[in-house]
């Protein structure tokens, strides 16, 4: 123990107090941190209530995590019928497995695995959650919570990624009409606030369909989000396309490959690899933006949190509800961004060789 102490001490001293100015900065920051963090820790941990079942068990002065415990399943799945909640769990497992398959698949098969996921996950997932064909039907209005947040994000991404790739290719196209249409589409959706788009989608979609054709309101929100994110994805992919040396396309043409084959075999695999970090960022933005479905009364994670605050039996629990749901959002987005950094690094290593 003794030998380790001096070197650790030195290291910290070098980090924090190498010069008088540095020392002063350190002290100011530490003081500010203490002022900010101590009441927070006291509220969230020391004075918090962990045990109990009703509001009466809450001790004033600290957080009442009993509330989160009592409402935990609602935060996860909303009003999904109790007897059917195993289906939500199974869906989460399915989505997780699909994700792992995508990440772990060898580069050679990644394309076909991705195709399989894009086809299988929505069809299996929607059947599992919505029911029918042997399962008890559960309407989308009963879905909610974290499950719904992830459902919306994943399916909007399934719309956004392929459409975004097409739009990015369209924007680079030599055909003027195609290029113009792509640019207009991208710039329109990138120029308007998502809150307005979700409202627009929920309002306009039923109106532009022939009468009698209904579009589920969850589907409407997903389509709206998918279109906006497609425009952002297109810009992310464009970055990758532009980073590719033009020699790649020229070489492919010289080999006699047509446009689509050159794009599929030569251009896209390289471009997508370059734009993966940017695309991941857009996916994180998408998860964060799902909170806006609240404006069309769809109860995602944040929506469930807000709805639970209105419960007269649990008055005054807003801090707890927001802290818990906020932490969940943070964990998910942080994990994805870390994964993206790690892949970026490993891809960089792979290309350096």
């Amino acid at each position, binding site marked *: 123990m003794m030998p380790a102490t001096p070197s650790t001490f030195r290291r910290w001293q070098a980090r924090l107090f190498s010069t008088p100015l540095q020392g002063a900065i350190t002290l100011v920051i530490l003081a500010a941190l203490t002022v900010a963090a101590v009441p927070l820790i006291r509220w969230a941990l020391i004075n918090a209530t962990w045990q109990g079942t009703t509001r009466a068990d809450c001790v004033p002065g600290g957080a009442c995590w009993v509330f989160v415990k009592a409402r935990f399943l609602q935060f996860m799945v909303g009003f999904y019928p109790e007897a059917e909640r195993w289906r939500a769990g199974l869906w989460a497992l399915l989505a997780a497995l699909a994700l792992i398959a995508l990440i772990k698949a060898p580069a050679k098969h990644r394309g076909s695995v991705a195709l399989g996921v894009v086809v299988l996950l929505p069809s299996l997932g929607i059947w599992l959650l919505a029911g029918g064909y042997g399962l008890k039907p559960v309407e989308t209005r009963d879905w909610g919570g974290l499950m719904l947040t992830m459902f919306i994000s994943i399916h909007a991404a399934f719309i956004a990624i392929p459409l975004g790739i097409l739009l990015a290719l369209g924007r680079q196209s*030599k055909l003027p*009409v195609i290029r113009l*249409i792509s640019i207009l589409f991208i710039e329109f959706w990138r*120029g308007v*606030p998502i809150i*307005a788009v979700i409202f627009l989608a929920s309002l306009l979609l039923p109106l*532009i369909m022939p009468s009698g054709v209904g579009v589920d309101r969850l589907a409407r929100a997903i389509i709206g989000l998918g279109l906006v994110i497609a425009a952002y994805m297109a810009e992310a992919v464009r970055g990758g396309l532009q980073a590719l040396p033009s020699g790649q396309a020229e070489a492919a043409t010289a080999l006699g490959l047509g446009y689509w084959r050159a794009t599929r075999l030569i251009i896209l695999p390289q471009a997508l690899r370059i734009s993966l970090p940017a695309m991941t960022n857009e996916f994180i933005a998408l998860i964060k933006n799902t909170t806006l479905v609240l404006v069309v009364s769809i109860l995602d994670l944040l929506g469930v949190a807000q709805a639970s605050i209105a419960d007269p039996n649990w008055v005054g629990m807003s801090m707890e509800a*927001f802290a818990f749901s*906020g932490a969940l959002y943070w964990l998910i987005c*942080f994990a994805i961004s870390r994964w993206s950094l790690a892949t970026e690094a490993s891809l960089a290593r792979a290309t350096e060789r």
Partner: protein
Amino acid sequence: MRLSALLYDKKIRDLIYQVAVLGGLVATGVYFVRNASENMVKAGIASGFDFLGRTSGIDVPFVLTNYQPSDSILALFWAGVANTLFVSLIAMVLATVLGFLIGLARLSNHWLLSTLAGGYIEFVRNIPLLFFVLFWYFGVIAALPQPRESIGFFGIAFLNNRGLTVPATESLSAFGWALIAILIATLAHWTYARVAKARKEATGQDAPVMLVGLVLLIGVPVLALVVASIATQWSIPALRGFNYRGGFVIIPEFVALLAALVTYTAGFIAEIVRGGIQAVVKGQREASYALGLTRGQTLRLIIIPQAMRVMIPPMTSQYLNVLKNSSFGAAIAYPDIVSLFMGSALNNTGQAIEIIAMTLAVYLVIGLAVSALMNVYNENTKLVTR
């Protein structure tokens, strides 16, 4: 034979592709529009823009235009546009300042400062903006005192949970003159800087650009504003009944939305700043030190001007995000265009399509203007390669 030859001709084929895509899009569009008009006629929903002339009757707590509840819905629309622009512009400036500070802190060689800045960035980037808006709103209201316990500033401005009440004036003419003086000073400075730069390039002589800039860009505006405020009649807020009367109220919704936009966007701008500065090759810094420039000078004269080039495109999209994200104000009753027009007005008239189209157009037009401005700036700072 000839037909297949035609099909294999690249030009013809490209043309067919384009016509097919365009035709498909137009057909879909026509189909949707026809459905919509049929459905609307069937549902008996009024259409057209006549509703803009109707009296709005909606009271708005924070108005920058001359809007009154007895004015038309069109006036309400402009009041919303003004509020959206107001909060967006101020948020863009403040977020840039805070973002630069955090970005530089992230690159600092002080371990704790850099770690803290990194922690802040990771925290901010992974939480939905809506949380920030709600947090600041209820945090701001909770932290501020009730009207009777207001915090006074020299007896003319008062801060409480109804907002910051500041003196206001009916006539702004003196400030109009001040604004003109400031514009002239800015123009003068710009011309002077140009001349000084040309002279430096020709003769190598340094001119006191900084000092003159200080006088022209800070001294003149301050003087002009002080003179203008002395020359104006003020209404000083006074406590009567529930709250202060008179003056102009900066509402807490504005402060909360601004704080949320600034703290959130700063996290993204900080990353752009860090990336931009790191993109400047190390040799530049070393050469600058070798020339005897101090650290501050190196940062100001060598690093940041070069980093700006890398930073401008992502900064543009952050500024556009601020504009679009100002619509989150609707969640906390900040009377922006979404809240006033897509909220109150839509509800009173029910003309959803017209109102949404107008709202989207506002964002598109402002967005295009911001992009154009940033493009001009980009052209000016672009690396001139020979």
